[in-house]
């Protein structure tokens, strides 16, 4: 009997809106997108990088950016300042002190992280950014009007702008060498040139396993943290490091929530406000109209 009643209630609920409602809540809870299953990534092993900056040269070369002969990249004086990406530099290598072994500083390559759920793509009013199934976040300059919201929203401060171009300025950033990686066997220019295999290109899911394996097998060599595995919902580029990441210019306060998630609550309120606001206005209008009518009638009868 009890079972029957339960079954009956269940049917009743599914006939009504309950089933729909519970399904929607499930869908909302699962809104986090874990990344395209077969997307690519790069694992940067900071214990291996020697700071030769050949990746910078290769990047300039592939992306047809202003470049210098490769020998000039051996010049260590650029490490005096902490550099960031800019309109003509999609990747930079910075040097950080290693308090454990001061004679062996740590070199950190910086470029677009290619987030699973990119802030730049979600804030762009013109859909100029796309996260491709290959993992690259690519930019389409033909529809960009230059509001620079992507730059303001990027948690890693990566996109740069061609401020000095008066008529056709573009946002610039690492392309993950999309035209190369979309072809079978293609790898990004920086990965291809790296002489010490500090950059490992592969399926992101496999790289996550590889990173943990490396840390597990060499617990003295690495801190137990794969940067980019969960940061802002996961990124295609990930790092493993001999020192805590906050010492190396990484932001470790960004959390694991994808940036677009922060705006979704508000955006889902928009249709509700749009529908209820006119109703409230009309209600108030008829009340105030009625009040005036009553007042007029009263003053007449007096």
């Amino acid at each position, binding site marked *: 009997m009890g079972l029957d009643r339960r079954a009956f209630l269940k049917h009743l609920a599914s006939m009504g809106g309950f089933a729909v409602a519970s399904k929607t809540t499930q869908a909302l809870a699962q809104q986090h997108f874990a990344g395209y299953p077969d997307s690519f990534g790069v694992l940067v092993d900071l214990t291996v990088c020697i700071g030769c900056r050949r990746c910078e040269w290769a990047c300039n070369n592939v992306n047809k950016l202003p470049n210098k002969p490769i020998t000039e990249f051996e010049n260590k004086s650029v490490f005096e300042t*902490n550099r*960031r*990406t*800019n*309109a003509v530099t999609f990747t930079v290598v910075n040097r950080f002190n290693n308090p454990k072994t001061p004679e062996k500083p740590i070199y950190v390559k910086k470029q677009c992280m290619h987030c699973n759920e990119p*802030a730049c793509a*979600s*804030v*762009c*009013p*013109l*859909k*100029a950014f796309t996260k491709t199934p290959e993992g690259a976040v690519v930019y389409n300059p033909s*529809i*960009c*009007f*230059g*509001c*620079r*919201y992507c*730059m*303001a*929203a990027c*948690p890693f*401060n990566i*996109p*740069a*702008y*061609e*401020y*000095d*171009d*008066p*008529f*056709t*300025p573009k946002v610039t950033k690492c392309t993950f060498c999309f035209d190369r990686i979309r072809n079978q066997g293609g790898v990004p220019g920086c990965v291809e040139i790296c002489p010490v295999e500090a950059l490992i290109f592969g399926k992101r899911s496999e790289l996550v396993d590889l990173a943990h394996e490396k840390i597990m097998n060499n617990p003295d060599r690495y801190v137990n943290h794969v940067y980019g595995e969960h940061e802002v919902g996961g990124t295609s580029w990930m790092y493993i490091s001999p020192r805590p990441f906050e010492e190396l210019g990484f*932001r470790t*306060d*960004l959390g694991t929530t994808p*940036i*677009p998630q*922060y*705006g979704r*609550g*508000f*955006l889902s309120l*928009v249709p509700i*406000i*749009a529908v209820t*606001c*006119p109703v409230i*206005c*009309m209600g*108030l*209008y008829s*009340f*105030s*109209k009625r*009040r*005036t009518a009553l007042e007029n009638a009263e003053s007449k009868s007096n």
Partner: protein
Amino acid sequence: MEKAWTREAWVRENIFLGMSFRDYLKSNLTPFNFIVAVILAVGIPVMAYRIIYGLGPSTNLSDTNPWGIWVGFDIMTGEALAVGGFVMGVAFHFFGLTAFRPLVRPALLSGFLGYLFAIIGLIFDLGRYYRLPYPMFVSFGTGSVLFLIAWLVFLYFSVQFVELSPAIFEWLNMKKFRKWVLNLTLGATIFGAVLATLHQSALGGLLLLMPGKIHPLWYSPFLPLFFFVSAIIAGISMVIVESMLSHRVFKEQVPKMALDHAQFDRITIGLGKAASVLLFTYFWLKIIGVAHANNWHLINTNYGHWWLVEVVGFVLIPAFLYAWGVRNESARIVRITSIITVIGIALNRINQSIICFNWNADERYYPHWMEVVITVTIITIGLITFRWIINRMPILYDHPDYEIEH
């Protein structure tokens, strides 16, 4: 021959304020206009420089600080202060506050112009300004708060034009059009209320996606609510400021107004009452924002002190000052407080998008002098446009040939 004469007369009456062209020019030789001329003489070439040579040489914007005063002041602050038209429309039509009627049209006009000049500010800020209409026609980033804002501004701007157009048709003496467009007023006000509510909160929503960039005291999941409530306060306070200035600057129109001195003061005090209640609400909302994030420990830092300046100095104190003015029935105190409040809301918008944005970056932003000049020039053009319209159209007073609406 006769037609030519009527056109000439029309131009004389409607454009040159009933003077001959020469007298009209002479009447414009005033000290205020001299200052305007100087600003325009400097500002317009600087504007041209920005358009021709680009953002690089004319701004201090950088890869780390992509937004400057054109976003933080011209757009964020400009649109908050332009919300008066919405507030007065709602108070008059939906709350039945018929006493506010004389202030509805001036508020609508300043709202309309506020939006117009915020859009003009945006043109200078956009890297490819000639693509301004792209969100409407070319590419739709439907998941973006900024896409939402673009559409809301576009629609709200059009709605405000509809709401304002009876005044234009009265000026042009086009009775049929006026009657037709008057039928749209109620619908336009409702639509406008929806748009303005969404738009003002969306400006806060814009910042929701920068949790790692904005100082925690200014970052809150309630930002859309903060922006909406403070925009209404800004709207009310701007109506007080702007009506006070209009009564001084356009003295010769005062006798035509349906409003004597005592009535005007009474309305001002009524607005002050609403502003006081809202400011107290806003103050508690800001406190709840800090409590919600448990950010109390940040209050005793440099940014925390700055936060106190904003929230105590420009929210709590004006809330009490407004209440004091209302209690003592002093329109003067209410008017002084309205100026403090307007400055406070501007300070908030600048804090949100400039001073406390990228607070943890090594590189800070200070406006380039050309950015300041262009902002000042835009405001100046806005002011003279406002004056031009006030001097010609029935905004501050009711046109004698037309019956009062509603």
